[in-house]
């Protein structure tokens, strides 16, 4: 017997609302199946299970918001005796110990309650939200609902009048605008990144002519369904480069860097109406270019439809952010914790390029690296950017 828990879908997530069960009690579940849908600040996310068995019983009702780590269902394992193999790559399931289910708040033992004059306790997400909302933390003390008198995200949400939904609010009003929903999630994650991660930045201008010509040439004979975009080449080039520079690929958690053997490349995808998400393309290092392209297309369309999977959000080991063909020269990213690097691709444009003794018009783009100085140094960062450049000079090998 095991329990299926509310997963942590990123460093900034404290709780999620169960909105849909996709499997009924007594039904068979297999590793990798999507069995529930959870609403978070990032939108509706499909939650996968990582074991085989039978769903025995629901433990949480639809519509209920519960903290990360809360058991959602009981699973009867396929063979109770068989040891389950761990997933081959990182699954950052973080359980925040300060948070308990709301129903249990009354049962907090006397000794755990805060004493007069002691520093008040606050959960990280609550602190982040209070900070981004410009609220005074001390004003929450009397409203704290967490165990031991801790201030929780729920309290802060209640105080700023934030509804626990994921609707995207566009900042169109004049005057102060509260960071809610997706903007709140981005605000929390990016503030945490800038506070905790010592970023360093490198830029490199590369000749994209070969990559572009390769795309044009390939697309000549392809119907629209099978056409390539430069983005697929970026994805493959980065996936290849992290194979040589693994210190840019993984998660930094509690002072430890966990390198990932697989390149789960997060692709920053903008959402119409505001905001963005960066779900991962899993194992990009072993995908054929065409498969990578279809994966990219599939991911983008699911993001537009507001439906992606839990593992896509939590697994990314490095992120690519590309300005596409209507942007500006360069983009310096902010690392998405607990990752340690983000690659920015500027908008390609025609520029003079010196080739031997002559100056030629070439399609040129600036690529950038923002990386975590706790894990890597500029020297390796520069070699890493160079490696991406070199892979893009041989597009047919990607």
């Amino acid at each position: 017997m095991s329990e299926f828990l509310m997963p942590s879908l990123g460093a900034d997530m404290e709780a999620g609302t169960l909105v849909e069960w996709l499997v009924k009690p007594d039904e068979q579940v297999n590793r990798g199946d999507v069995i529930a849908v959870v609403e978070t600040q990032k939108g509706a996310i499909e939650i996968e299970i990582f074991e085989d068995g039978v769903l025995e019983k629901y433990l949480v009702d639809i519509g209920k918001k519960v903290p990360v780590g809360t058991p959602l269902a009981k699973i009867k394992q396929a063979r109770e005796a068989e040891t389950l193999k761990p997933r081959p790559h990182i699954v950052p399931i973080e359980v925040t110990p300060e948070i308990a289910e709301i129903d249990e708040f009354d049962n907090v033992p006397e000794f755990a309650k805060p004493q007069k004059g002691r520093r008040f306790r606050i959960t990280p997400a609550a602190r982040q939200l209070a900070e981004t909302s410009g609220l005074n933390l001390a004003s929450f003390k009397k409203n704290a609902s967490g165990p031991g008198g801790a201030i929780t995200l729920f309290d802060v949400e209640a105080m700023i009048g934030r509804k626990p939904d994921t609707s995207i609010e566009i900042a169109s009003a004049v005057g102060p605008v509260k960071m809610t929903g997706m903007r709140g999630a981005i605000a929390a994650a990016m503030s945490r990144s800038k506070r905790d991660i010592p970023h360093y930045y490198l830029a490199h201008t590369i000749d994209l002519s070969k990559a572009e010509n390769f795309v044009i040439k390939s697309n000549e004979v392809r119907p629209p369904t099978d056409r390539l975009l430069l983005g697929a080449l970026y994805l493959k080039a980065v996936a290849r480069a992290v194979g040589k520079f693994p210190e840019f690929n993984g998660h930094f958690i509690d002072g430890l860097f966990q390198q990932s053997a697989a390149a789960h490349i997060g692709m920053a995808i903008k959402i119409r109406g505001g905001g963005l998400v960066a779900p991962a393309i899993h194992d990009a290092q072993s995908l054929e270019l065409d498969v990578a392209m279809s994966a990219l297309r599939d991911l983008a369309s699911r993001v537009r439809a507001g439906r992606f999977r839990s593992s896509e959000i939590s697994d990314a080991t490095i992120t690519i952010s590309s300005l596409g063909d209507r942007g500006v020269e360069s983009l310096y990213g902010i690392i998405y914790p607990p990752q340690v690097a983000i690659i920015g691709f500027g908008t390609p444009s025609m520029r003079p390029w010196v080739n031997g003794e002559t100056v030629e018009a070439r399609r040129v783009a600036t690529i950038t690296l923002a990386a975590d100085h706790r894990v890597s140094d500029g020297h390796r960062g520069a070699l890493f950017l160079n490696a991406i450049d070199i892979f893009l000079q041989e597009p047919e090998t990607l």
Partner: protein
Amino acid sequence: MKTSEIENILKEEVYRIAPDIEITIIDRESDLREEFDIDSMDFLNLITALSNRFHIEMPEADYPHMMTYNKMIAYLDEHIA
């Protein structure tokens, strides 16, 4: 097929990709991608959808002839059998 029918299908497919943009307020002679705020992936999806609905090839080399709303209608008009 009448030009108005072609335009209706184009409207439908553009709406699928950019439901937040009113077609009445766009500049039909300006870059479609700017007017509807669509990226290269959106544009490829639009081409894919139109190619499927009209059963025409719409090669990448012809993209310059599809770059505005009006040009797109003219292109479709010309290539649909």
